[in-house]
């Protein structure tokens, strides 16, 4: 039992997540003065959800940057940010969500808090997974593009109305450190704090609710999961169809059916759990194209054997 627990230890991943979060939010002066970093590194985007108004942030949030360029009166398409997201997505897909997103780490840690009833899945779970794609389309692309002011400038509507990351990483520390800002808070601030509180509370009950249902960045990276250079692979000869990988997956992915599913954040738990070592990951992994057929065939044989 102890050996199994040790095998499923997520500490190495959390260490990397924490290290990355510290590295990309290491402008210590900002935490002391309540001002944000204004150096040249802010030309660059970070791969995960990381508000650029966080006092320690060294880089730009890709979703905020995407809305800023789309909403700018000079540009209607953001080649720079879209290219960056395509590059990261094509290389590693949602590996970023599992390993390099500070808000992912916060949700991971919150989910470790004991609670009488943890929710693994519920009735609307599958449908709600599509919500993040709608949010990406409406709040990140269409509204900043078309709902513009008199000079043609759009607002970052996702950041303004939905994003709890900005409230947590930017809003709370900046308002604590700046008296003048505290006098400017109103309904919007209260609304965003309610959303943040709901997200944080739900993270205790449900594993990564923001990543599963809301995050537009996860939505973008997810479409690259099946084609990215970094891939997961299931060795059909080694797989004994025990279902251990599916049971352990907190994102409710069945790696045997699709080991590079849109929802997989590449945390590697399935790989650690597999008793026969059938799941592997790496760059340039070849995926057998007949994988779904093999699963169907196995299911058919099992059903015939059990007389169903």
């Amino acid at each position, binding site marked *: 039992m102890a050996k199994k627990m040790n095998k499923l230890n997520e500490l190495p991943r959390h260490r990397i997540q924490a290290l990355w979060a510290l590295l990309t939010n290491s402008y210590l002066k900002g935490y002391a003065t309540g001002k944000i970093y204004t150096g040249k590194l802010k030309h660059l985007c970070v791969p995960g959800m990381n508000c650029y108004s966080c006092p320690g942030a060294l880089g730009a949030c890709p979703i*905020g940057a995407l809305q800023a*360029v789309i909403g700018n009166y000079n540009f209607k398409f953001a080649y*720079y940010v879209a290219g960056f997201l395509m590059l990261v997505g094509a290389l590693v897909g949602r590996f970023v969500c599992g390993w390099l997103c500070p808000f992912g780490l916060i949700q991971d840690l919150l989910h470790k808090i004991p609670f009488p009833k943890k929710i693994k899945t519920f009735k609307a779970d599958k449908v709600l997974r599509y919500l993040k794609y709608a949010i990406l389309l409406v709040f990140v692309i269409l509204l900043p593009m078309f709902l513009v002011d008199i000079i043609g400038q759009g607002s970052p509507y996702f950041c303004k109305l939905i994003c709890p990351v900005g409230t947590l990483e930017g809003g709370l520390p900046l308002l604590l450190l700046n008296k003048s800002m505290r006098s400017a808070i109103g309904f919007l601030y209260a609304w965003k704090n309610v959303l943040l509180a709901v997200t944080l509370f739900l993270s205790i009950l449900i594993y990564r609710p923001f990543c599963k249902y809301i995050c537009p960045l996860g939505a973008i990276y997810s479409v690259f999961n099946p084609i990215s250079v970094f891939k997961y692979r299931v060795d059909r000869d080694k797989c004994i169809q025990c279902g251990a990988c599916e049971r352990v997956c907190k994102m409710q992915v069945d790696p045997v059916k699709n080991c590079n599913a849109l929802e997989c954040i590449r945390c590697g738990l399935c790989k650690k759990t597999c008793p026969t070592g059938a799941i592997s990951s790496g760059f340039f992994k070849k995926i057998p194209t007949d994988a779904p057929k093999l699963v169907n065939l196995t299911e058919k044989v099992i059903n015939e054997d059990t007389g169903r």
Partner: protein
Amino acid sequence: MRAKLDSLKASPVIGPLLAVLGIGMMLYGIHREEVNVVFAKAIKICLECIGIG
């Protein structure tokens, strides 16, 4: 159609090809000076992001 899509997904060239395309788009974006918009937004406190604007 489904089989074609599966073989496309399994193709080892599609990922690197999109990565190269991504780099190309980034360079074009830098050429169009989009990066200055990103920088200008990132160095000012985003009032919308923190819930004031």
